[in-house]
């Protein structure tokens, strides 16, 4: 595979940004490949974890952010504990996901109208995703719905989580066949528990957003 390194393909500031967000020293990686050897999902990735590190060192931002790899990482931390240079690679992957999602964080809901608006927006987005059926969109979609649930109820309400995910991701019947056995073993809760300090939770989300905007 050939990669051209020039002003159009590299971004010098990107490494610094990832190092700041992750607190890790990217340049200390010497490509031993131990991270990729131990990674349980490496074979499903388009770029192996050590390749991500090399691309980062070279500042090839777009290739890294567009890779399936950063969304397939299961955060299992095997790479982080085995790295001879003590780079917390799982944290680097987190930072890459954070950086690529930053903009989307803006639209978290605080009342039911904006909750509905958010669902509608993601539904529109998902129409594009359905055509792609892609790791990137799936996890991003799941993250949003999961955090919306915390934002709205204070806790995760699983039935709504799965329902919203299926609608928004386009995998309408995903996990559908698991429902009867879950019901039979009474593992499904029918009503969400609403935490009394819900307004506090919403304030936490708002302040995090505000502080992150200040930092940028």
């Amino acid at each position, binding site marked *: 595979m050939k990669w051209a390194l020039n002003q159009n393909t590299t971004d010098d500031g990107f490494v610094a940004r990832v190092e700041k967000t992750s607190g890790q020293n990217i340049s200390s990686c010497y490509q031993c490949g131990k991270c990729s050897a131990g990674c349980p999902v490496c074979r*499903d990735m388009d770029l192996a974890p050590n390749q991500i590190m090399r691309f980062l060192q070279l500042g090839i931002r777009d290739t890294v952010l567009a890779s399936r790899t950063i969304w397939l990482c299961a955060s299992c931390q*095997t790479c982080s504990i085995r790295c001879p240079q003590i780079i917390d690679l799982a944290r680097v992957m987190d930072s890459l996901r954070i950086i690529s999602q930053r903009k989307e964080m803006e639209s978290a809901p605080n009342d039911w109208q904006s909750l509905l608006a958010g669902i509608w927006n993601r539904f529109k987005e998902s129409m594009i995703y359905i055509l792609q059926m892609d790791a990137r969109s799936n996890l991003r979609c799941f993250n949003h719905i999961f955090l919306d649930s915390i934002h709205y109820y204070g806790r995760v309400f699983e039935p709504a989580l799965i329902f919203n995910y299926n609608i928004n991701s386009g995998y309408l019947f995903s996990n559908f066949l698991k429902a009867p056995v879950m019901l039979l*073993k009474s593992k499904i809760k029918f009503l969400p528990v609403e935490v009394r300090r819900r307004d506090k939770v919403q304030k936490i989300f708002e302040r995090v957003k505000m502080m992150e905007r200040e930092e940028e």
Partner: protein
Amino acid sequence: MTKYAYYPGCSLHSVAKEYDLSMKAVCRALGIDLIEIPDWICCGSSPAHTTSHLLSLALPISNCIWAENQGLDIIAPCASCFSRLKIANLEIKKDGKIRQKVNRIIEEEYKGTVDILNPLQLFNRMDMHGEIKNLVKIDMSGIKVACYYGCLLSRPGDIAGEDDCEHPKKMDQIITTIGASTCDWQCKTECCGASLAITQPKVAFRLVCEVLNSAMENGADCIAVACPLCQSNLDMRQSEVSDHLGKDIHLPVVYFTQLIGLAIGINQEALGLKHLITAPFSLFEEKCNLSMAIAKG
């Protein structure tokens, strides 16, 4: 009586209610007082730490305030909650600036004096082994248990509290204490892919197959877990795994607290065994000579 603040997390109130039930029952029998943190909120789990670093600290820390005011340490049975609470606490202790930021977000003054423990650490405290051993009533020696730690109970070592994160021992020690035997197998710290179970089901399925197959090949009668995500991921897909591997896989995936509870003769109904998807009853009836009529409900 030792007192702890109890952070069940979302899973223990829904898909993992048997973990919640058995944890409380075993603690009651051992004289440990668990007080549920009032109005706790979700720790944010993976979606938070892959979306916003500050959010992944603020959500867990806002649950620690109450425990700090009461002067209690926190028990978090869910491996994911435990990991997030512990990481947030360590980071706040290390970095004063981060602590100020988080305090500004949660609008309270958290100092970071609370220690976070998972049940493996709790039951491995010096005095506990002897106490559990004294209470054992049932002969569990016929059962061979594959202790499964997965990711977050073994890694990273300083968070999970394991001396050797490639070869953790805490669960094996507890299972040996109750008289059952444990097996050596290569997948005890492999990832089961639970965090991808919804978004990348095919990838997760491959990982589940590997773990179940390895336990089976090493002669395990059941798998013991201490994480609700691992439990549901390994328990729910066994019929598909059997079809895929072309061999019959029937491996009950039980919480290690349920095994302790059975061994020390806790009322079977209180251990929630009927909520497990792969039924463990015939196993305990055959190998431990237990009558499981009450547990079946």
